[in-house]
């Protein structure tokens, strides 16, 4: 809750008078008001720049330096002010935090200087407001990465690796070639062989000079068939070994097999094996030739070696719709112009525009401004439409290209930003939820601790809900009193989520037996409450088992206390106090005090640990009913 709203607490409390006439129970007494000191101005001198504020403003956050007595260490008697030898520019933001309850992060400041100031003044950076939180987290992450990089560079030589399994270290070597020399060697060897394989594919089609006894020229591939075959075999063996090693080392084999790179690998080496298997049959040789084309896909294996290629592939994939649109518009234009050209040139004799599909070729060549000249219009109409075609071709092709390029960069940046936002969204939601539940939980905690305790002790007992700075304890007690008044007005109590859930379950389970209990306890809901506490007992039944034997005698005592107390007052606080007196438990967890008490009347027939089973419900219920006033 923002401390600014604390100023409205008197209003909220005054408005509670509206509940009084309809209240079904008397109100609890108001908390004791400590007489605060006079609200005076405090002068804060930060390296010569004087800031002034009210004392109350600073004391809104009592666990920071300025809000607590720690500032007395900085008091300067001669000038009657508090002197801090720190940066005044950053201090401005810290003081604004006290005033408005929101901490902002100035973008032009260095992140480490800002963090240092926050640490000095005892302010947790997690409370930075939503407006500045993303920026702060980004800068912080960059800073930590930079520090990590520096450290890595220093310690790289004597880095002691944790004990990775052989498989994991192999995978790491494959993915990051820089981790070890073996990986680097492997990386370069595979790269070399990819290049060799591709070059061999290219060179074997070059016509070599034929021998003197040959009529026509043959390609080098046919002349040195054996050499090329050996080279191909060697390359394919290396690729196969590499693929198998990667397959073995992959942490998730199924995912690896599905990945694009592994498909490229398979496509690169399959033609060779298929060629081995197939015989030199005439029918399938056509297919065999096709397969050899696939050998060129080995060049895509280079994408493992080049990050840029990977990025290009990714952006192409994400720009598929824009490319599709380009293709579609081109197709439309081609069909239109081809039709027009065909009908325009129909009249001319010996025209090459024999059909519309034949005119496609002319249209494409003209629109892309290639202009081979193998098909030329001869009629006047044809020439006119031909020129229109070439002019519009420039537009149609040139226009989508910048759009695609800008889309590339937009999509790329967008995906980066989306990743960042997704990562931060979870933490942001968690923060909001924590602050919201922190407020509610604080009140429930306060109730369980017994409301008669003093305000300061309460604030100190609260366990780690410090995602927000702890706020003024006086404010807390007054707020808790207000919530207590609301409880009294409606004669219902606040409980937390789990208790409510188990309540719902228990009410449905124990409905038939509630009528029995009504005679003994005035509250018909007592049974369900006990059953919920019984459930809570599960977690620590072992520790309380030793209490079962020793406290049997006091059951009677307890129940009489209950029945006696009932008519006098409805206030739970006095009952709580009584319990805490008669049963000095050393509870490690405050929240389970009341639950521990209920565990006492467990009958000896059931084992202490199994006490929460519904084995003897009748007996349990009758006992529980007596202690049900809680």
């Amino acid at each position, binding site marked *: 809750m923002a401390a600014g709203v604390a100023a409205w607490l008197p209003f909220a409390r005054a408005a509670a008078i509206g509940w009084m*006439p309809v209240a079904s129970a008397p109100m609890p007494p108001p908390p004791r008001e400590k007489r605060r000191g006079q609200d005076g101005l405090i002068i804060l001198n930060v390296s010569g720049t004087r800031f002034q504020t009210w004392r109350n403003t600073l004391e809104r956050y009592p666990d920071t330096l300025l809000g607590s007595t720690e500032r007395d260490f900085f008091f300067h008697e001669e000038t009657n002010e508090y002197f801090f030898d720190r940066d005044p520019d950053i201090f401005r933001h810290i003081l604004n935090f006290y005033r408005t309850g929101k901490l902002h992060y100035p973008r032009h400041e260095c992140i480490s200087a800002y963090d240092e100031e926050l640490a000095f003044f005892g302010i947790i950076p997690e409370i930075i407001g939503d407006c500045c939180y993303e920026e702060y987290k980004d800068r912080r992450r960059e800073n930590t990465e930079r520090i990590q990089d520096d450290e890595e560079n220093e310690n790289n030589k004597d880095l002691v690796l944790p004990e990775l399994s052989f498989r994991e270290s192999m995978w790491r070597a494959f993915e990051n070639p820089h981790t070890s020399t073996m990986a680097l060697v492997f990386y370069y060897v595979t790269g070399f062989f990819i290049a060799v394989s591709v070059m061999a594919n290219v060179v074997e089609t070059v016509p070599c000079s034929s021998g003197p006894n040959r009529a026509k020229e043959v390609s080098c591939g046919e002349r040195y068939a054996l050499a090329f075959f050996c080279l191909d075999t060697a390359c394919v063996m290396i690729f196969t070994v590499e693929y198998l090693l990667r397959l073995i080392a992959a942490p998730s084999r199924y995912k690896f097999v599905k990945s694009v790179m592994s498909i490229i690998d398979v496509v690169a080496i399959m033609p060779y094996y298929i060629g081995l298997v197939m015989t030199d049959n005439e029918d399938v040789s056509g297919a065999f030739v096709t397969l050899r084309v696939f050998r060129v896909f080995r060049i895509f294996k280079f994408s493992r070696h080049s990050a840029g290629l990977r990025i290009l592939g990714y952006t192409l994939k994400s720009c598929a719709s824009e490319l599709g649109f380009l293709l579609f518009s081109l197709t439309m234009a081609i069909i239109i112009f081809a039709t027009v050209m065909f009908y325009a040139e129909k009249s001319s004799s010996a025209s090459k525009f024999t059909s519309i599909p034949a005119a496609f070729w002319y249209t494409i060549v003209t629109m892309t401004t290639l202009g081979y000249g193998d098909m030329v219009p001869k009629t006047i109409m044809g020439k006119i439409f031909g020129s229109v075609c070439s002019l519009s071709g420039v537009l149609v092709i040139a226009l989508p290209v910048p759009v695609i390029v800008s889309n590339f960069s937009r999509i790329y940046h967008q995906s980066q930003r989306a990743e960042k936002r997704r990562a931060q969204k979870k933490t942001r939601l968690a923060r909001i939820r924590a602050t919201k539940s922190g407020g509610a939980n604080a009140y429930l905690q306060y109730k369980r601790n017994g409301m008669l305790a003093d305000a300061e002790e309460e604030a100190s007992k609260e366990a780690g809900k410090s995602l927000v700075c702890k706020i003024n304890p006086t404010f807390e007690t007054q707020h808790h009193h207000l919530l207590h008044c609301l409880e009294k007005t409606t004669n219902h109590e*606040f409980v937390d989520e789990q208790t409510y859930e188990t309540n719902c379950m228990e009410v449905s389970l124990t409905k038939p037996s509630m009528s029995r209990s009504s005679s003994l306890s005035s509250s018909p809901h007592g049974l369900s409450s006990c059953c919920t506490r019984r459930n809570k007992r599960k977690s620590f039944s072992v520790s309380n088992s030793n209490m079962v034997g020793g406290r049997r005698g006091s059951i009677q005592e307890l129940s009489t206390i209950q029945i006696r107390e009932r008519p006098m007052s409805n206030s739970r606080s006095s009952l709580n106090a009584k319990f805490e007196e008669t049963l000095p438990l050393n509870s490690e967890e405050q929240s389970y005090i009341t639950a521990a008490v209920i565990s006492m009347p467990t009958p000896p027939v059931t084992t202490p640990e199994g006490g929460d089973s519904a084995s003897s419900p009748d007996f349990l219920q009758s006992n529980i009913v007596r202690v049900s006033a809680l």
Partner: protein
Amino acid sequence: MGALMVIFSLQTKQRRKMTDSVEDELELSAARHRPEALEQLEAQTRFSRKELQILYRGFKNECPSGVVNEDTFKEIYSQFFPQGDASTYAHFLFDAFDTDHNGSVSFEDFVMGLSILLRGTVQEKLNWAFNLYDINKDGYITKEEMLDIIKSIYDMMGKCTYPTLKEETPRQHVEIFFQKMDKNRDGVVTIDEFIDCCQNDENIMKSMQLFENVI
């Protein structure tokens, strides 16, 4: 020709919308309010100068423009009751504070209301409470009005209560209230019945004095 007319009318509509939005913006930024002088407020309410100063500082901190509209009011009030939904009760409160019914609570309204609640006589406080319950301000509290008020109070508790809230709990509460307050059994509670009955109830009298020293 017809097309031209259509285009022209579209243009003017756009321009009018633009000017409207500009005017709206002016209106919003002009919704500022400066309260009366400190002496006047001191005379009209039962707060001292210092108390008024503290109150105004807190008020202005949360509402820099000087007036609270209903949404801000609901938001502020809801922060005190995180587990439930305080907006309905805040709406009734807003109506009770906004004495001149102009849709916003200025500092004067705020301070007048607080003066009655914190420094007023029991009679005045009961009057104020009656005014709060009487939603349509006709001088009678009917069962429906009371049911609305009680339901809004129970809404503030939220879902996770012990014992669990049932459908008929508010209605039962209203019945109890009417049994106590409605002496002549005519189905409505008038201001005199209300004040009489409250003055005879010791609990209510005691709780009225509860928030004396809140400032």
